[in-house]
C-alpha cells in the first residue's frame, strides 16, 4: 500500500503530458469546450507493417474516420534517373530492375524496347515471344505478391503463403532461365542474351496447368467471403473520370470500367499474336480491383499457354552493335506493367550514354490517388486501399 501513495504523489508533480493532454489541449484552446471534436494526426509509417515499404502517410483523423492524408515519400530515393545519365545504355539496364523489384522483368522489357526504338531496331521474333512469356509470368508473380499482402492487410493470413508457393514456381523458371530470381536483368537491348533452356516450355506449361487450380483456391478463400466483400466493396471507389484525371492506370483504371490495356491498344513485344480478354470492373472499388487482378492472372496464364505453343525459331539478338550510340533525338515508349503504364522517355545526344532517362512510374502516379480514395473511410480502410493500389516503394521513390 505505501507504494501506491508514493507513486501517486510523485506522479501528480511529474505528470505533464500524457496522451489525453496532448489530444485535448488543442481542443480546449480551439473552441474551449470539453467535448469539442478534435482531430488526431496519426502517423502511419515509414515503419508500419502495412505500408508496403517505407511509405509514410500522415492521417488526419476524426475518431477513426479519415479527414485527409499526406503522403511523405522519398525514403528509398536512389536517384535512378541521375545514375542513368552517367552510365551507358547497357550499363543502365540492370538498374531498372531495382525500381519495381517485384516485377523486374517488366521494367527491363520497357527499357529495352524503348532503347530499341531509339535505335530503330527490332528484336527478332523469337526473342519477342520469349520476352512475352517471361513478362507475363512476371505479371502473375507480381499480382500474386499483391494478392498475398493485400489479403494479409485485410487480416486473411493464409492466402499469402499460397501465393508465395506459386510465385516460387515462377521464380524457379526465372532462375533456370537467367540465374536470378528477383532482379533478373533477363533481357538485353536488341533481344536476349540467353537462349531458353531445355524444358523451358515444359516448365511453363506445367506451371500454367497447375495454376488454374491454384487460382481457384484463392477464389474459394476470398471471393465469396462475406467479410472480404464487406471490407472491399465500396471501399476506395475511384471512378473512370477520376482515374484518368489522376493518371491512375493499370488494374485501377480497368476496375473503373475502362476497357483499356496497352497490350491491346498499342501492342508491343508479341502481344498482337495472342488472344486474351481485358477484364474490367464496374464500380471501381477495391473488390473490383481484386477481381480484375485475379482475372488478369488467368489471362496471363492463357497468353503463356498460347505463346509456348509456337516459339519461332531463329536468332535471339537483333542487329545491335557492341557500343550503343543512338542518333540524337528522343523517344517515349510505354508498356503495360503489372501496376499500370510504365513509360520511358529517353533523350539521346548521340553519345553512348543517355542524355536523360525519365521513367514514368505507375506506382508513383497511382499513389497520388490515395488521398481521394481514403477520405471519409476508416483507418482500417486506409490499409486496404494502400494494399489495393499495389505500390512498390522502390518504384515510387526511384
Amino acid at each position, binding site marked *: 500500500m505505501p507504494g501506491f501513495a508514493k507513486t501517486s504523489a510523485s506522479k501528480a508533480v511529474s505528470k505533464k503530458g500524457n496522451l489525453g493532454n496532448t489530444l485535448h489541449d488543442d481542443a480546449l484552446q480551439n473552441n474551449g469546450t470539453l467535448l469539442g471534436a478534435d482531430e488526431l494526426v496519426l502517423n502511419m509509417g515509414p515503419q508500419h507493417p502495412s505500408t508496403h515499404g517505407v511509405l509514410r502517410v500522415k492521417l488526419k483523423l476524426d475518431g477513426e474516420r479519415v479527414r485527409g492524408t499526406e503522403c511523405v515519400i522519398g525514403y528509398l530515393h536512389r536517384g535512378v534517373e541521375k545514375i542513368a545519365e552517367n552510365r551507358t545504355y547497357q550499363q543502365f539496364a540492370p538498374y531498372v530492375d531495382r525500381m519495381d523489384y517485384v516485377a523486374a522483368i517488366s521494367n527491363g522489357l520497357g527499357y529495352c524496347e524503348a532503347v530499341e526504338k531509339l535505335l530503330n531496331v527490332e528484336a527478332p521474333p523469337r526473342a519477342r515471344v520469349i520476352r512475352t512469356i517471361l513478362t507475363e509470368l512476371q505479371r502473375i508473380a507480381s499480382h500474386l505478391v499483391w494478392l498475398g499482402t493485400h489479403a*494479409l492487410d485485410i487480416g486473411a493470413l493464409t492466402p499469402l503463403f499460397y501465393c508465395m508457393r506459386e510465385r516460387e514456381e515462377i521464380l524457379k523458371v526465372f532462375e533456370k532461365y537467367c540465374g536470378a530470381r528477383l532482379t533478373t536483368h533477363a533481357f538485353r537491348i536488341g533481344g536476349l542474351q540467353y537462349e531458353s533452356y531445355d524444358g523451358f516450355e515444359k516448365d511453363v506449361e506445367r506451371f500454367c496447368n497447375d495454376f488454374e487450380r491454384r487460382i481457384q483456391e484463392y477464389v474459394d478463400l476470398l471471393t465469396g467471403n462475406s467479410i472480404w466483400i464487406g471490407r472491399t466493396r465500396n471501399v476506395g471507389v475511384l471512378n473512370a473520370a477520376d482515374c484518368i484525371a489522376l493518371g491512375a492506370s493499370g488494374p485501377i483504371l480497368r476496375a473503373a470500367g475502362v476497357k483499356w490495356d496497352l497490350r491491346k491498344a498499342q501492342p508491343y513485344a508479341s502481344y498482337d499474336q495472342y488472344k486474351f480478354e481485358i477484364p474490367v470492373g464496374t464500380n471501381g472499388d477495391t473488390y473490383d480491383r481484386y477481381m480484375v487482378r485475379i482475372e488478369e492472372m488467368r489471362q496471363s496464364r492463357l497468353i503463356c499457354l498460347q505463346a509456348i505453343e509456337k516459339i519461332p525459331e531463329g536468332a535471339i539478338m537483333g542487329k545491335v552493335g557492341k557500343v550503343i550510340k543512338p542518333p540524337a533525338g528522343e523517344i517515349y515508349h510505354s508498356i503495360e506493367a503489372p501496376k499500370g503504364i510504365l513509360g520511358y522517355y529517353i533523350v539521346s545526344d548521340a553519345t553512348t550514354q543517355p542524355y536523360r532517362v525519365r521513367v514514368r512510374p505507375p506506382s508513383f502516379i497511382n499513389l497520388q490517388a490515395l488521398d481521394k480514395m481514403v477520405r*471519409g473511410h476508416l483507418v*482500417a480502410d486506409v490499409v486496404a486501399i494502400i494494399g489495393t493500389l499495389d505500390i512498390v516503394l522502390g518504384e515510387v521513390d526511384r
Partner: protein
Amino acid sequence: MNPTVLTILHFLQTWWVELTCGVVIVAVVPLVAGYVVLLERKLMADMQARLGPMRVGPHGLLQPIADAVKLLIKEDIIPAESDKFIFWLAPVISMVAALTSMGAVAFGPAFQVARDINIGILFVLGVSSLGFLGIILGGWASNSHYSILGALRSTAQLVSYETAGGLAIISALLLSGTLKISAIVQAQYDQHAWFIFLAPVAGFIYLVASIAETNRAPFDLPEAESELVAGYMTEYSGFRWALYFLGEYANMIVVGSIATTLFLGGWLRPFPNVHWLNWLDFLPAVIIALVGVYCIYRAGKQPVKVQTGFMWAVALGCFAVAFVFAALWLLHLFHRFGVLIPLNLDFILPGLNGAFWFLLKVSGYIYVFMWLRFTLPRYRFDQLMHLGWYILIPLAIINVFAVGISMLLEANGVNRWIGMVLTTVLVLAAAVFLVRWHDQRTESASTASLTPDSYAG
C-alpha cells in the same frame, strides 16, 4: 504434536484438491498457454503449406520454453512519456484476472478451486472481464496513438459483445436453472442432452461473442497488426508483453471452459446416460496410449539421437498417464477377481476421466478459434459494431424468449425436441430477417456516402 501443525495438517487434508488445483493453475497454465501458442503455429503452418517451428526440440516441441526464456531476458522498455505506475500495473491486471477466473472453472467433477461457489459461472464471467481493465489502462499508459486506439476499440468491443454473450449465457442458464457450475453440468446429465442441442443459436452467439471478447481474428481489431501495429501492446516488450500474451491465451481457455460447461456438457463424456456406451470411459486411456505408440513409431525416424530419446521419453510419459487413467478399470478387474487393493481412488479417477473430456472439448473449442483465424479476413470496426448491435444482441434477446417458450411448451406436455426445433426455426427466421434488414440499411447508407457512426450504441 504441535497444535499449529495439527491445524495446518487438518487444513491441508480438507483443502488439498483445491490447493493443488490453484498451484496447477498458477504454475501450469502459463506453460499450457505456451504450448497452445505452439499448437496454433503448427496448425497455422499446416494450413499454410509450411512446417512451422522445427528448430527447438523435435518438431519445435521446446519452442515455447525458448520463447519464454527469450522474453524473460529481453530488455524491458518503458516509454519515457508513459505513466509508469499504470504501465506496470496493466499487464498484471490482465494476467491476474484471467488466472483468478480460472479458479472457479471446474476441470472435471473433482478439480476446482472454488468448488461449491454458488454463483460459479457469474464469477468466471465477471472476473475474466476485469482483464479488459488491463488492456484499457495499458493502452492509455503507453501514451501512443496506436495504443490508445487499440484500447478504445477494445473497450467498445467488450461492451458490445459482452452483452450478446451474456444474453446467450442466459439462455443456457434458463435451461439449467442454476449458476453453480457443477449443477449446470449435472443438469445436462439429467436432461440427457448438452445444451448446445437445446439452444443451438445461443451456443453459436456465444461462440462469436467469445471470439470477440478474446480479441481473436476475425475480431482482433484491438491488436490488428496491419492497422494498429500491435494495438494496446505496441509499446510493451519483454516480460510485460508476455504477461499480456499469457493473459490472452488464458482467457481463451476460460471462455472455452465456459462454453464447454454451459453448452458442451462440461466433463461429461459423449452420451453419458447411454449405458452400452460405457466403454467410452476407457477411451482416454486408449487414446493416450495410442499417442505413446505413435511416438515410438516416430522415434525410429528421428534424425538425431537426442530426438529419438526425447520421443521415447514422451512415449513413456504417455504410457504412464494412460496407466493412471486405466487404473480405475484395472482396480475393478482386480476387485472382480478378488484381489483387493487398499486404495480408495474412486474419487480421483472419474475426476481424471472427466478432466480428459473437459480438456478435449476446450481444445476443440480453441481449435475452432484457430481455424477461423487462419481462414477469415478481419472485420472493420464499424462492421464489427454493426454485427454486435444490429444482429447479435437482438438475436440473443429473441433467443432468450424462444428458449423460455420452448421450456413453457415442454412444461405443458409438448415433446421437448419439437418445441426446440420450432423455436429454433423461428429464431433463425428472425436472424435472416435481421441480416437482410441490416444489409439494406448499410447499402442505402453507403450509397448516401455517409456510413453510420462506428461508435453508435
